């Protein structure tokens, strides 16, 4: 690229050919007023606010859309430029209501700010102002469409980032309006970003509406506790209460975006369900007690039970410090029964892994992949912003191949896909593996010998090996395993096959982490196989073993057993049968029924801690508000419990001490050295045969963890609709059911009646029923045989 010499406001600078005047000005810190320009969106040049004077140009030019040329002289503050900018501002203000005092954007409004510099002190406009009818965009976004200045950022966001054009600019001239088609709600899982993008108060946050003014809020940094990306947050606090959550820009992680789950989950923090006082169940009655009494009670009880009869379970959404102390307590008592993989069902890799599983690459690489194979993942819902990065890859470079048990819209071009029943995932992957070996003229790996090659397998193999037409070589390839693959009963087979596919194709191999701290939990040793960073440690039972037959006591950290487990029925049976159950949780929930002691621990906003994201990025955060009531950070609770149990090494002063204890002086380095997806020694199993129907289950996007489940606004979205039984129309007909009628489904012992919904993209022998939802908690495991019959 050629370098050009230009001059802006008298400052000489060199810029790349192809840059715009706006890019050049940004390089030297010169601000040009603008509304429609956004660095992450395409250039529209329709607000005209960025008009500047260019020497020898006969009229003012829009800085955002004018490429620089050699020798160009630009004036952004000349009388000519400012007069053009002021004229544009006058036009923009003609129809803009003067309602800043009641507008939520007031104080953080680009139009308001720029009007100070470029607006007139009075208006020459005498005619009637335009009024635009409100639109209902759903429970997350409030509208005041009269305020809209038609910058079209929200429209471009839908087209270019969210992947679905839900908003459009209908009409013409003065009658232009931003609207959805018909009365559709905005349903994208990234929709909240339009609130940040809107430069005026037309699109604002509905849950935050009229709650606070921007200047009353303290801004505190945090890390999102939901998906495994670990989005960087700016939490806005007033009166010791979280008022809203905004993205904190980090180009390497979440860029300037935030998924709706990360943005609106804070609503679940201060619900009436919060547990604010330690409680002990005495003769069937809950009694509030002091921390001292509660912890002494717990310690005495635990001392009286043989350590190998105690099971410690945590969700992977808790900070690393807590998970570390939990395993330290267990191993200190002489037992390795500790696990966080509550939704996993195949643990045979515990003895075959050489480290913690991770993404296999930095997150940023996901935006620049040429060839991808994603196995068993509900990409958009499980990893909203990573799905955005993959869409970016697809848009510019890449071919995306999918193997999955359902065919939910990805919102981008898919090169090849194979939708099979869950039991066939491994066999399908084996087919691709064989096709690859044939293509590369290499021996077929042992694990794939049963693979059957068909046209789609060959097409996928050609795609990921880069042997397709127009291949330029030197391409970035990746194979990813999603949540469904990890929860799958034959996960070890799938992992081994994916590893072989990646090896044959010369691709990176990554496991898309299930939760905010899936990687961190393994790194600090909250698994039965090994201690922190893979050090040898006392072995114990895994989550499934702990929950399939009752132990005498359970220590549950943030676990809602009926929602967080692979098989809620057997989990609840075991926990109910235990003689002593300690639940550490920010919420009461169903644990009131099965716990013996309830300890109120802090959600992520009320404690310091660390999440390790799926690329191994260690991100520590501080508390942003004080704990509610008698709530305490869980690391403190566990430290005291360790001391009361008489264990050594529980003398940490703060959470940083705990982290140092867990991961050493250089946590990032130690974690990254520990991460590898390499496994060995998995033997081939014949594919599982299920004669009848199979269940396909995923955890709905707004049911993943305890906080999200209690966010009122998120629970009102279309994604949080009540679970239904989705089936292929031929299956509906075969079973004599009615679409939108009722069906009785049964897995292990329990039966459930659900509404039937047609989904012709599912395999014909599958019934898709989400897991992790209160309505479906009485069903059995996430996968396996299921029966369905008319009610």
């Amino acid at each position: 690229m050629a370098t050009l010499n230009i001059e802006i406001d008298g400052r000489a600078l060199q810029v790349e050919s192809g840059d715009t005047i706006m890019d050049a000005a940004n390089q030297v810190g010169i601000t040009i007023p603008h509304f429609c320009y956004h660095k992450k969106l395409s250039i529209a040049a329709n607000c005209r606010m960025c008009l500047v004077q260019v020497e020898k140009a006969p009229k003012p030019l829009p800085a955002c859309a004018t490429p620089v040329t050699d020798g160009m002289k630009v004036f952004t503050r000349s009388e000519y430029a400012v007069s053009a900018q002021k004229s544009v501002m006058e036009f923009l203000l003609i129809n803009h209501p003067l309602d800043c005092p009641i507008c939520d954007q007031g104080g953080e409004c680009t139009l308001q700010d720029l009007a100070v510099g470029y607006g007139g002190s009075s208006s020459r406009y005498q005619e009637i102002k335009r009024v635009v009818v409100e639109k209902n965009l759903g429970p997350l976004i409030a509208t005041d469409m009269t305020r809209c200045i038609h910058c079209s950022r929200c429209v471009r966001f839908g087209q270019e980032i969210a992947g679905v054009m839900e908003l459009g600019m209908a009409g013409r001239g003065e009658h232009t309006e931003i609207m959805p088609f018909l009365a559709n709600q905005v349903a994208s899982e990234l929709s909240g970003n339009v609130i940040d993008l809107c430069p005026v108060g037309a699109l604002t946050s509905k849950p935050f509406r009229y709650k606070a003014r921007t200047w009353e809020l303290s801004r505190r940094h945090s890390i999102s506790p939901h998906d495994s990306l670990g989005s960087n947050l700016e939490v806005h606090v007033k009166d010791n209460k979280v008022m809203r959550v905004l993205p904190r820009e980090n180009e390497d992680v979440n860029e300037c975006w935030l998924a709706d789950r990360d943005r609106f989950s804070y609503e679940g923090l201060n619900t009436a369900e919060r547990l604010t006082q330690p409680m002990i169940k005495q003769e069937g009655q809950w009694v509030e007690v002091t921390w001292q009494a509660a912890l002494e009670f717990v310690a005495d009880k635990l001392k009286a039970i043989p350590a190998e009869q105690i099971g410690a379970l945590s969700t992977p959404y808790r900070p690393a410090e807590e998970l570390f102390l939990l395993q330290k307590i267990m191993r200190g008592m002489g037992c390795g029964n500790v696990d966080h993989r509550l939704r996993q069902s195949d643990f045979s890799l515990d003895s075959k892994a050489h480290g913690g599983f991770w993404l296999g690459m930095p997150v940023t690489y996901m935006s620049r992949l040429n060839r991808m194979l994603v196995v068993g993942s509900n990409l958009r819902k499980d990893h909203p912003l990573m799905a955005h990065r993959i869409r970016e890859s697809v848009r510019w470079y890449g071919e995306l191949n999918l193997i999955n048990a359902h065919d939910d819209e990805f919102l981008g071009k898919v090169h090849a896909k194979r939708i099979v029943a869950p039991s066939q995932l491994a066999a399908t992957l084996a087919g691709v593996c064989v096709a690859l070996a044939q293509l590369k003229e290499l021996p077929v790996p042992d694990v794939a010998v049963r693979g059957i090659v068909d046209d789609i397998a060959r097409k996928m193999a050609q795609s990921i090996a880069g042997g397709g037409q127009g291949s330029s070589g030197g391409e970035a390839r990746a194979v990813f395993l999603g949540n469904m693959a990890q929860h799958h009963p034959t996960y070890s087979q799938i992992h081994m096959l994916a590893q072989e596919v990646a090896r044959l194709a010369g691709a990176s191999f990554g496991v898309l982490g299930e939760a905010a701290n899936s990687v961190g939990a393994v790194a600090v040793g909250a698994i039965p196989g090994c201690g922190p960073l893979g050090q040898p440690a006392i072995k114990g039972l895994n989550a499934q073993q702990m929950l399939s037959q009752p132990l005498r006591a359970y220590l549950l950290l943030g676990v809602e057993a009926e929602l967080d487990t692979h098989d809620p029925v057997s989990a609840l049976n075991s926990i109910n049968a235990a003689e002593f159950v300690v639940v550490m949780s920010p919420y009461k929930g169903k644990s009131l029924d099965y716990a013996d002691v309830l300890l109120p621990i802090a959600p992520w906003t009320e404690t310091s801690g660390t999440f390790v994201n799926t690329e191994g990025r260690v991100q520590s955060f501080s508390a942003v508000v004080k704990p509610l009531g008698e709530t305490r950070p869980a690391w403190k609770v566990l430290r005291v419990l360790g001391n009361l149990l008489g264990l050594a090494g529980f003398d940490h002063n703060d959470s940083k001490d705990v982290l140092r204890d867990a991961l050493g002086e250089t946590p990032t380095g130690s974690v990254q050295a520990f991460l590898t997806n390499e496994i060995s020694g998995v033997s081939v199993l014949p594919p599982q045969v299920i004669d009848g129907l199979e269940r396909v289950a995923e955890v709905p996007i707004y049911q993943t963890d305890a906080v999200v489940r209690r966010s009122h606004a998120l629970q009102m979205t279309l994604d949080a609709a009540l679970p239904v039984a989705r089936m292929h129309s031929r299956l509906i007909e075969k079973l004599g059911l009615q679409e939108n009628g009722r069906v009785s489904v049964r897995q292990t012992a329990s039966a459930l009646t659900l509404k039937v919904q047609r989904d012709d993209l599912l395999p014909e022998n599958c019934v898709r029923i989400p897991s992790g939802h209160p309505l479906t908690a009485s069903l059995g495991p996430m996968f396996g045989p299921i029966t369905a019959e008319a009610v």
Partner: protein
Amino acid sequence: MAKPDLNDSQRLSAESLALIDVEVAKYPVDQKQSAVMGALRIAQTECGWLKPELIEYVADYLEMPAIAAYEVATFYNMYDTQRPGRHKITLCTNLPCMLMGAGELGEYLKKKLEIGFGETTEDGRFTLKEGECMGACGDAPMCLHNNHVMHTHLTTEKVDELLETLK
């Protein structure tokens, strides 16, 4: 986005679809949506006006978001997104026509038909619309009848005459 469930009454005839296919063939295979203007015109010709379900159907046929087709349908004033009367009079109100008296003619029409721009008479006989430049400014002022017949050099008398002939 869920595919719209369209029953047969909302589908276009085979002839219309064949005409749309001719439009589609003019553009690269992966850019079917380039044919949206032609396709909407053909759909409107067959169905009389573009009701939302029809726009959605056309958008789906061209593999584009419904809202994008709706943007086009609402931008150009020859598309009718409201059911028009039997006779749609589109009066050009751009500068040359206005200089030649289109403003007064507009007022005259509104008064005579007792409707405003964008409205339809109660008996469903007339719809009055504002039009953009029709490219024959030398013959200003002018109007279009049902998108296809142009009447030029308008005066109040000529307007009376025209309305009289449209039953």
